[in-house]
């Protein structure tokens, strides 16, 4: 039933933007800076990625690498000030969202692109019931009556496998457990049957067993609905099972993009290599855990050349002078390292 509504709401393709790339959501050369009292922090420095229907893109990076800020800029929920988008395009069905009217953009939220957040307890409004917050979308966005909206909201709670959905409808967020809260959050984000779902560290606040359940649920819902899923995480373990492609971010840039198998088998960027190396391994018990030395750069003062060069074990003089662009290597992957070819071709 909800499928019918989507085809009414969104018309892919013909939009007259002159960029018929056929991509569902494309971010191109996005730039964001935070203007603070202490100076300007360049948080996103030319991020390009895309996601298609039915595809899962994992955006991987440490805290502060800009993965969440990119998502907020895409969603149009950046805190402004201090955050400002200073360049680039975010195209949904080929149409740039950054230049469209606020009203047009609002309509895309929830219906075209929806988002779930890391901490469902603070992301849900504490003074309204879970049911109210889901049904609200049917009432406000779809113009449904109270009873019908309630019925649909209970269906949504059922779909995310919340037991006794009918009874839970009138519970408040604080009456839910962490995992159930994130399920409710997912139900809320999927209410309007979005084409793209951005999940910003959806399992970080949960304990490990619940994490797996939530990831399974997300993967299942994504398959059923053929959504494009952007999964933001810092957890390599989380992405391995569900992602089709992985984009690794560092200091506000994509440093490597590849499909999951290639990325794990042959990283084409020293940073990715470092990340994979620092996963604790069962067969190396008793040894010290490997880490990437140093700290991410201060975004108010990014070092010249490759932003990773101060921490890079392979750094050469060229790395301190030239910023390596994100270049295609082989057929289906890209890396922003001067020595990407060497990395991939070594044994």
């Amino acid at each position: 039933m909800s499928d019918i509504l989507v085809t009414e709401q969104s018309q892919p393709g013909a939009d007259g933007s002159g960029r018929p790339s056929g991509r569902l959501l494309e971010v191109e050369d996005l730039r964001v800076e935070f203007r603070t009292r202490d100076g300007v922090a360049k948080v996103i420095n030319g991020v390009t990625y895309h996601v298609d229907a039915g595809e899962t893109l994992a955006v991987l990076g440490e805290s502060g690498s800009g993965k969440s800020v990119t998502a907020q800029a895409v969603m149009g929920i950046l805190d402004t000030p201090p955050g400002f988008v200073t360049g680039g395009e975010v195209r949904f069905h080929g149409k740039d969202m950054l230049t469209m009217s606020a009203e047009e953009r609002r309509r895309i939220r929830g219906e075209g692109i929806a988002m779930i957040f890391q901490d469902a307890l603070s992301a849900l409004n504490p003074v309204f019931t879970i049911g109210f917050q889901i049904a609200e979308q049917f009432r406000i966005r779809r113009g449904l009556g109270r009873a019908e909206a309630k019925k649909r909201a209970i269906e949504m709670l059922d779909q995310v496998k919340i037991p006794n959905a009918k009874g839970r409808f009138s519970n408040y967020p604080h009456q839910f457990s962490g995992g159930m809260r994130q399920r409710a959050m997912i139900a809320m984000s999927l209410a309007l049957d979005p084409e793209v779902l951005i999940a910003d560290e959806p399992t970080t606040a949960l304990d490990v067993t619940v994490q797996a359940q939530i990831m399974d649920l997300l993967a299942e819902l994504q398959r059923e609905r053929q959504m494009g899923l952007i999964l933001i995480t810092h957890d390599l373990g989380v992405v391995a099972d569900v992602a089709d492609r992985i984009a690794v971010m560092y200091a506000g840039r994509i440093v490597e993009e590849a499909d999951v198998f290639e990325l794990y088998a042959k990283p084409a960027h020293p940073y990715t290599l470092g990340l994979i190396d620092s996963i604790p391994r069962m067969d190396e018990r008793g040894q010290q855990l490997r880490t990437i030395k140093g700290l991410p750069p201060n975004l108010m003062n990014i070092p010249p050349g490759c932003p990773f060069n101060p921490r890079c074990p392979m750094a050469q003089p060229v790395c301190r002078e030239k910023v390596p662009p994100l270049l295609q290597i082989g057929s289906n992957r890209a890396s922003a390292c001067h020595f990407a070819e060497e990395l991939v071709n070594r044994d």
Partner: protein
Amino acid sequence: MGRYLLRRLLQLVPVFIGTTFLIYWLVWSVPGDPFAGKCGDRRCPDTYINFMTEKYQLDQSIWVQYATYMKNLFQGDFGVTYNNRAVGDIIATAYPNTLKLAVVALAIEAIIGLSAGVLTGLRRNGFLDNLVLVSTLFLIALPVFVIGFILQWLLGVKWGIVDPTVSSEMRFSELLLPGFVLGSASMAYVARVARTSIAENRRADYVRTAIAKGLPMRRVVGVHLLRNSLIPVVTLLGTDLGALMGGAIVTEGIFSINGIGRAVLRAIVTKESATVVSIVVVLVLVYLLMNLLVDLLYAALDPRIRYE
């Protein structure tokens, strides 16, 4: 919830007895002769004094007096003044006026204070924000009698926009100015609390969620943001209502409103102990009940608060 309510109501009993006794004792220990000046220039005749002393048990100990008073009170008898007027009548005449004034003042506080707070909280550091910050500072800093006399003189006397005093009919339009004067300081606090609360919650995660859901901005602000920001404001307004219902000696005096504040002041000056105690007893009760109401309202606004 039911048990909580019962417990709160039971708590009122010791508080009620304690406060009434305290007031009774205070009035009892104030030095002075209630019959001084009662008979013009001359001293009152002994027969009169003896008669009154016996009638009002003035020669008895405070315990006897208090016990008699409480006994009568529970029978609904507030006692009589030395002029043989029922204290219950005095309260019944004055209290509605005080309530009217209180309601007008509270409405002004809520409407003006809240709107100013919300507007400035959403857009900080603008012209309006600075205007509100400075003017609220004025209202908080100036004593109520200064604001009262200045506005009465300007609006009532110099420009003649309103009547300088309130007639005995207590028309709503007449009460706007006294209501504003009475509520001015609290209105300023309401504006400031609302402003801080809105500004704080504006960046809250759940507001961002509401925006991400594609809700129109007026719903994000008017429903999601406002409901959360109202919690501290309602607490403030609720406690203030209790205070406003206690009468406003200064404001009632300036605008010659025959309210409970003036009645109690008159009773204190003329040493009508029965009147003073009875009025204060009523005020204490009202205040306690208002407090209970605020606590219940608090739970209604914030579902995370549950009483058991």
